[in-house]
C-alpha cells in the first residue's frame, strides 16, 4: 500500500508542556482516518504542524516518502496538504469567491480573472449544496455558512491530503450529512482525509480507521470496525469511563430552581429574534449547550455587560441588575471567565498574585489601603488560594504567562472567588486544560456551587456538561430547544438537541 503522508516521531513542546511526545502516523490514498482525543491531547498541535503553522521540535513529516520541513502554510499547501482549521480564518472584508481562492488566486499577469473566480467558486459551493452568491462579503454570512466557505476553500486547492479539524462544530444536521457524503466521495477519488471530531458517532459513520491521541501520545490506531464507542472512549481517557458521579438528582434540582438566584427575563440580543429567558438557582450548576453561533456565548457576554442587550431584565436575588459594563456586572455580583483565556483572561505581565487580586472588592477599604495594596495581606490571601485550589506555582511573584493552561485557569477562578460573585458565568472552562487540572476545576465548580454560587457553564464539550451540570439548556440558532434535567443530562441528548434533533427533555419550539 502506498503512503501519501507519514509522520515520524514528531515531538512538540510548549513551556511546561510536552504537547506531542513522539507521534508516528501514516496515511494511504483513499483512507479516511478519524483522529480523536480529549481536549489538550495534542490533536490541534499535530494539525498545526502538518499545516506548516508550527514547526516541530524534532521528528519528520514525509509526503510521498520524502521528508519535508514546512516553514509556512504555503509550503504545506504546495506539498498537497489542505487544512480546514477550527478557527475561522476568513477575511471579512473580502467576498466569498475571493476568500475561497485567497493565496492561490486565478490570475493572468497578476490581474485577478474575476469571471473565472466567480464561476469556479459557484461550482464549488454547488457541490457543497450551498446556494450562496460568490460576491457576498464574508461579514454578512452566518457562522454555519462561514464554516462551509472554509471547507470550500480547502477543497479549491490541489491536494492529496485533506485535514478537517472539527468541521461540524457549527453545522446543522442537514449540512453535516452533506459534508459526510463529500468526504466519502473524496475517499473514492483516492484522497486521504484526516477527520477530527468530538462526536464519536461521526467517526464511526465515515472513518475507516481511527487514531487516538492521549496526553501527546498516539495510543491506538485501528479500523473502526474493530471497536465500539465505549472502547474508543476508554482509549481516549486511558481508563474506564466513569458513569457520572452525579451528586444530585432531578428532585434536588427542582428545589434549587425554586429559589432562583439569577433570573433572566426576555433578554433580547442583537442578531437573535427570540429573547432569552433562564433561571439559575442558588448552588445550581446550569449548563448551556449548543453549536457555535447558537447564541449561548452571546448570552453570557450580554449578562456580563460585554455585549449590549436590547431589552429585558436581569435580577440577582431579586435585585435588578443594570446591564451596562463589566464593572457594573461585577458590582452586582456577576463574574465571567472568557473562553479565550490568553486574549481575555490573563494579564501576562503581572504576577499571579496581582492577577488574582485585580477584581477584589475594595470599596470598603479606607485610608492608605484604599489606593495602595497591602503586600503582606495579598500574599497571605494568595497563599490560601494556592493551597485551596492546588495551583502549581513556586511563589506568588511568578508571572502568570509562564504557567500551564490549567494553572492559569485556577488563578482566574481565584480572581472570580475574590470578586465575591454570586453568579459565576463560565465559557469553556476546561479548554486547553490538561486532564489532571480538569478534575480539579470540576471540583472547584462543585465547591463554589455548594457555597451557594449559581454557576452557569457554557460549553461545547458535551461530556463535560453531562459530568457537571445539574440542568442543561440547549440552544439552536438563538432559541432554547431543550431543557434537560438530572438524569436526562447525557452526552447523547445534548448532542442530538444541539444539531437540531430533539430527543428527550422538554421541547420549547
Amino acid at each position, binding site marked *: 500500500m502506498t503512503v501519501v503522508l507519514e509522520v515520524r516521531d514528531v515531538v512538540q513542546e510548549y513551556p511546561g508542556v510536552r504537547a506531542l511526545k513522539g507521534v508516528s502516523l501514516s496515511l494511504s490514498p483513499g483512507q479516511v482516518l478519524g483522529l480523536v482525543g480529549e481536549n489538550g491531547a495534542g490533536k490541534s498541535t499535530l494539525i498545526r504542524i502538518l499545516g506548516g503553522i508550527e514547526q516541530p521540535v524534532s521528528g519528520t513529516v514525509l509526503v510521498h516518502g520524502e521528508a519535508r520541513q514546512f516553514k509556512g502554510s504555503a509550503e504545506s499547501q504546495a506539498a498537497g496538504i489542505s487544512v480546514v482549521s477550527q478557527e475561522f480564518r476568513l477575511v471579512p472584508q473580502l467576498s466569498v469567491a475571493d476568500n475561497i481562492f485567497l493565496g492561490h488566486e486565478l490570475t493572468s499577469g497578476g490581474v485577478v480573472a474575476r469571471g473565472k473566480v466567480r464561476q469556479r467558486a459557484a461550482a464549488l459551493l454547488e457541490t457543497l449544496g450551498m446556494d450562496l452568491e460568490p460576491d457576498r462579503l464574508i461579514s454578512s454570512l452566518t457562522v454555519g455558512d462561514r464554516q462551509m466557505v472554509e471547507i470550500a476553500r480547502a477543497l479549491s486547492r490541489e491536494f492529496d491530503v485533506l485535514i478537517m479539524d472539527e468541521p461540524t462544530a457549527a453545522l446543522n444536521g442537514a449540512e453535516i450529512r452533506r459534508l459526510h457524503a463529500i468526504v466519502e466521495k473524496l475517499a473514492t477519488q483516492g484522497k486521504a482525509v484526516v477527520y477530527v471530531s468530538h462526536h464519536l458517532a461521526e467517526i464511526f459513520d465515515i472513518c475507516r480507521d481511527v487514531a487516538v491521541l492521549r496526553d501527546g501520545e498516539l495510543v491506538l490506531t485501528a479500523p473502526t470496525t474493530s471497536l465500539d464507542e465505549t472502547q474508543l472512549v476508554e482509549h481516549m481517557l486511558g481508563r474506564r469511563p466513569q458513569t457520572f458521579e452525579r451528586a444530585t438528582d432531578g428532585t434536588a434540582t427542582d428545589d434549587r430552581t425554586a429559589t432562583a438566584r439569577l433570573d433572566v427575563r426576555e433578554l433580547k440580543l442583537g442578531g437573535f429574534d427570540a429573547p432569552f429567558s433562564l433561571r439559575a438557582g442558588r448552588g445550581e450548576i446550569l449548563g448551556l449547550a449548543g453549536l457555535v453561533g447558537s447564541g449561548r456565548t452571546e448570552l453570557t457576554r450580554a449578562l456580563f455587560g460585554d455585549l449590549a442587550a436590547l431589552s429585558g431584565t436581569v435580577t440577582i436575588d431579586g435585585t435588578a441588575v443594570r446591564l451596562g459594563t463589566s464593572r457594573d456586572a461585577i458590582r452586582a455580583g456577576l463574574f465571567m471567565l472568557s473562553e479565550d483565556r490568553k486574549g481575555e*483572561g*490573563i494579564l*501576562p505581565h503581572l504576577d499571579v498574585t496581582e492577577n488574582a487580586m485585580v477584581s477584589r472588592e475594595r470599596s470598603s477599604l479606607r485610608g492608605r489601603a484604599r489606593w495602595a495594596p497591602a503586600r503582606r495581606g495579598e500574599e497571605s490571601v494568595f497563599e490560601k488560594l494556592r493551597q485551596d485550589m492546588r495551583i502549581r506555582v513556586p511563589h506568588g511573584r511568578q508571572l502568570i504567562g509562564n504557567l500551564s493552561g490549567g494553572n492559569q485557569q485556577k488563578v482566574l477562578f481565584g480572581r472570580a472567588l475574590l470578586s465575591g460573585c454570586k453568579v459565576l458565568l463560565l465559557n469553556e472552562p476546561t479548554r486547553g486544560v490538561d486532564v489532571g487540572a480538569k478534575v480539579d476545576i470540576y471540583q472547584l465548580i462543585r465547591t463554589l456551587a455548594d457555597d451557594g454560587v449559581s454557576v452557569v457553564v457554557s460549553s461545547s464539550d458535551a461530556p463535560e456538561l453531562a459530568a457537571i451540570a445539574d440542568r442543561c439548556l440547549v440552544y439552536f440558532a438563538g432559541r432554547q430547544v431543550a431543557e434537560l434535567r438530572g438524569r436526562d443530562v447525557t452526552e447523547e441528548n445534548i448532542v442530538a438537541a444541539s444539531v437540531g434533533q430533539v430527543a428527550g427533555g422538554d421541547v420549547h419550539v
Partner: protein
Amino acid sequence: MSTTQAPIEQRAADQRPGRGGSRPAVLGFLGRQYLLLILIVLAAAVGLARPAFWNGGNLENVLFQASFVGLAACGMTLLIAAGLLDLSVAGVIALSSIAVAKVLPYTTIGVAVLVGLLVGVGLGVLNGLLVTYVRIAPFIATLGTLYLFQGASFIWTSGDVVPVTSFYFRQMTTGTVGRLPVSFLVFLVLAVLTYLLLNRTYFGRTLRAFGSNERAATLAGMPVDRTKVLVFVVAGICFAIAGVFMTGRLASAEGTMAQGFEMDVIAAVVVGGTALRGGRATVFGTIVGALLFAVLANALNLLGIASYWQYVVTGAVLVVAIALGARRRSAAEVRGAG
C-alpha cells in the same frame, strides 16, 4: 537612588521564567549593568577625546539636559507601561511654559508654576479623552494634538519669544545644590514617585494591567478608561514640570522651544529597557536612558559634529533599541506560546 534600584531588580529577577534561586537576580543585575556600562564607557571615551567633558560647567550642562529629558520621560514611562504613547510632548511643554512666562510678571512664582502645571493637566485631559472616548489610536491622536498645541502656542505668542525676567524664578530653576542642579534632584525625586506609583498603587496596577492586556483588564472590571485619562494627566504634569525648568534655563518660552523633544523622551524610555508593548516598565532604566542621551548629545556637540547628525543618531538609536527589544521579546513569546 539605591532605594529605587533594589526593588526594580527584584522584579526583574521574578520576571525571568522557569528558574529559581539567586541566578536570575544576578542575571537581572548584569542586564542592567550593561546599559550602565555603555553609559560609563561612552562618558570615558568622550572624556578621553575631549577632556573638556569633565569640566564642572560641562557636566552641569549634561545633567541639566538629562533632567529635562528625564522629567518628561517619567511621564512617558507611565504612558508606555500602559500601552499608550504621547507625541504631543513638545506642544504641552510649549503651552505650559508660555503660560508660566506670561503670568509670571503678574503673580508669585508659586502661582505661575501652578498655572503651568494646570495647563499640563488640561492638555493631558484632552489627549486622554481623545484616546478613550473618541477612541483614536494614541500615537495618531497625540500627533494631531502636537500640531494643535503648537499652532495654539504660535497663535498665543503671535510667533514671538516670551522673555522671563524674574531673577528669582531663574535662580530657582537653574540653581544647584552642591554640584547637582535642582532640576536633576527634582527629576530623581519624580523618578522615585513614578516607581512607587507604578508598582505600589492600585492606579499603577490598573495601568500595567491594561497595558498588558486591555480586554482582560476590562473584563476583570478595572476602570480602564478613567485610568487612561489619569495617566495622560500625570504625564501632562511631568511634561509641564520639564517645561518649567526649560523656561528657567532658556529665560524665555516660545512655540518651538521643545520641537522634536518627543523623540528624545521616547528614546530615553525605550533605550532604558521599557518595552513599547506595555505591561511593565523600568524607571531606573529611564534614568540611565536619559543620562545616556544627554551624554551622547553633549559628545556630538563637543566633537563639533553638525547638529543635523543628532536627528540621525537619535532616530537610529531608538530604532535599534526597539529592534533589539523586539528580538528579545519574540524569543520570550515563543517560549510563552500556548
